């Protein structure tokens, strides 16, 4: 028993050093050498970090493409989903409110045209992506607000579709909006 305990203690110390210190430092070093993104892929504009490529931001202004609803208000320091069940009446009321808000800001759009990812919240609360259809359906609103031809904005959306390998085709909302700001 005593011998077991002594061996266990020493073994534990060694294994903590191996897997709790050396292993992560090794991966960290590999990251420094092979990946320029190991701090989280920041996007820098005018020497200021305006965001991280993979971290969604809150867009509520009519002049920007909206991302998905978020139950944590896109708070990237405390992320999470709604965890509402599919039949929860409070949740369904929330979805209804999102539909109403969207229709209000996008006159001319019919209810059945709204893609479901625009009225449901992701598990992370900071999903950086939307489906391509969710971007197309906002083109008209943005064209009106920005006073730009619809075709130009649609072309921008076309270029922004990311056909990721082994995943769904998506559009990164932050990157799309950054490009939108550069349009003349």
């Amino acid at each position, binding site marked *: 028993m005593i011998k077991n305990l002594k061996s266990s203690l020493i073994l534990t110390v060694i294994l903590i050093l191996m897997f709790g210190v050396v292993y992560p430092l090794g991966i*960290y070093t590999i990251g420094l050498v092979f990946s320029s993104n190991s701090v989280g*892929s920041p996007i820098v504009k005018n020497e200021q970090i305006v965001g991280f490529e993979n971290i969604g931001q809150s867009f509520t202004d009519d002049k920007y493409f909206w991302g998905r609803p978020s139950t944590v208000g896109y708070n990237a320091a405390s992320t999470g989903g709604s*965890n509402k069940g599919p039949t929860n009446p409070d949740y369904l009321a929330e979805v209804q409110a999102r*539909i109403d808000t969207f229709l209000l800001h996008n006159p001319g759009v019919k209810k059945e045209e709204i893609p479901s990812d625009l009225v449901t919240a992701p598990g*992370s609360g900071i999903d950086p992506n939307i489906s391509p259809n969710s971007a197309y359906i906002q083109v008209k609103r943005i064209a009106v607000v920005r006073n730009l031809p619809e075709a130009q904005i649609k072309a921008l959306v076309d270029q922004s579709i990311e056909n990721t390998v*082994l995943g769904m085709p998506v559009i990164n909302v932050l990157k799309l909006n950054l490009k939108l700001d550069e349009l003349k």
Partner: protein
Amino acid sequence: MEFLYSAIIILVTILLAVPLGRYVSKVFKGEKTLLDFFEPIEKLIFKVSGVNPLSEMDWKQNLKALLTINLVWFIWIMFVLLTQTWHPFWNPDNILSMEPTQAFNTAVSFVTNTNLQHYSGETGASYFTQLLALAFLQFVSAGTGIAALALLFKGLANKSTRNLGNFYYHLVRACTRILLPLSIVLAVVLLLNQTPMTFKGSETIVTLQGDTVSVARGPVAAMVAIKQLGTNGGGFFGPNSTHPFENPNGITNAAENAAILLIPIAMVFALGYYLNRKKLSYIIIAVMTAGYLMLLIPTIVQETGGNPKITQMGITQPQGSMEGKEAGFGPVLSALWSISTTVTSNGSVNSMHDSFTALSGAFQMMGMQLNAFYGGVGVGFINMFIFMIIAVFISGLMVGRTPEFLGKKIEVREVKIAILVALLHPLLILGGTALASHTWMITENPGEVLKWLNNPGFHGFSEMLYEFTSAAANNGSGFEGLGDNTPFWNISAGIAMLLGRYIPIIGPIMIAGLLSQKKYIPESAGTLKLDSGMFGVMLFAVILIVGALLFIPALVLGPVSEYLTI
């Protein structure tokens, strides 16, 4: 396309598991492998800690060693969690110490390979904790399961001897030879796909729209790799692999999903190589895969169908049910992950199980309740072994012969142990849920006082059932709407995890020890051949009867009722 992707992920994983299984068998036997350059390091470790890796021990000595070192780890992680405020380095976000019952739950959770998380990583754990306590335990708790399996294999291969090998030897080599190399490979894949690995604290930024936001990050890649491979599942961030830093795109999603299944499947192939009974391993893989698909296919159907309540609002859902799911993964890849993570005891998620459509919740729970389709690293096959003993016993009764298992007589003691272990699981799940429901019912105004349930009605019951199912199966996923960071849940789920971990290791190792001492009886015409399709069917039936029938009443009260009320 997603259907094709899913098929690719499953097929590639099984194909990779074959050579890995062969390699694992060599590691267990101490044969030469390509990674022998680790040997001097291992020798040094054994020398310093005073362990003679070649001295063989019987089942009692091995279990003592296993339990002692697990206790030491428990004390270490408790200490780390309770002293976070004073961590000397790697705490840039100044995370505070955990509350004691939460620390107890977290400590048990990581020692038992469960990784149920009643805290949220970005606000509840310092980088020091994440690496020196949590990631460390993700290696060694997985290593414990693998080492236990190595002892079991030895017991099955032995003829009339007491020695099952050396636990320490297998523990260290499971970590250095199996988990570490695979983790490095996966971590590199993650790094190349923008998963962060940094010791810088959170970054405060001003967004495009002018909001000030703080973005949590950290040494993510290293931890995500081992949490996926070691059927751990404890994420760096609260929402686990739904978080775009843990799982940025389709490639990482596929790699992480494959990593969930890889080692558990490889362990079954390892059995075939170890005992030189490849056909037996194919039969077991077939049974496991049939069970996996039986749960996976209806879940995919349910999720792609969308939420009927939202359809009623006039939203067409060609994308399927999207609440709790990321746009980049969609319903099919989320369903694939959710069943992969529940049949194995992984528990990581790439979507929120609480928000899946009603019946999918039942399939996820069934994966954990049956707990034998692939299962955890090491312990997955150990659970299957219990079902095999029961299947052999029942078959024996049917033909009126003393049952035999791989040339050893199965007698009263072995069967008693197997039945007790098999019945513990439903006892913990149903007993725990009953206790929680009772507490809820006798409390006046429970919604205000207890505040557990995030959803009313049947779904609320499902949240409690899911929590105990996940704890007893050492899974670690959750219907996360459950407000589980209270003393009641921290302690009760903690006890369920402890019993659900150690009894199903102790029992089978005892059986292996008993079988190991028995004389080998050559197969005769009357022997039930384990490597036959007949036995496969028998095994599958036993799992369904013993497992499913016990749980169906509870599932009817929760997800099935919810489904029927739509």
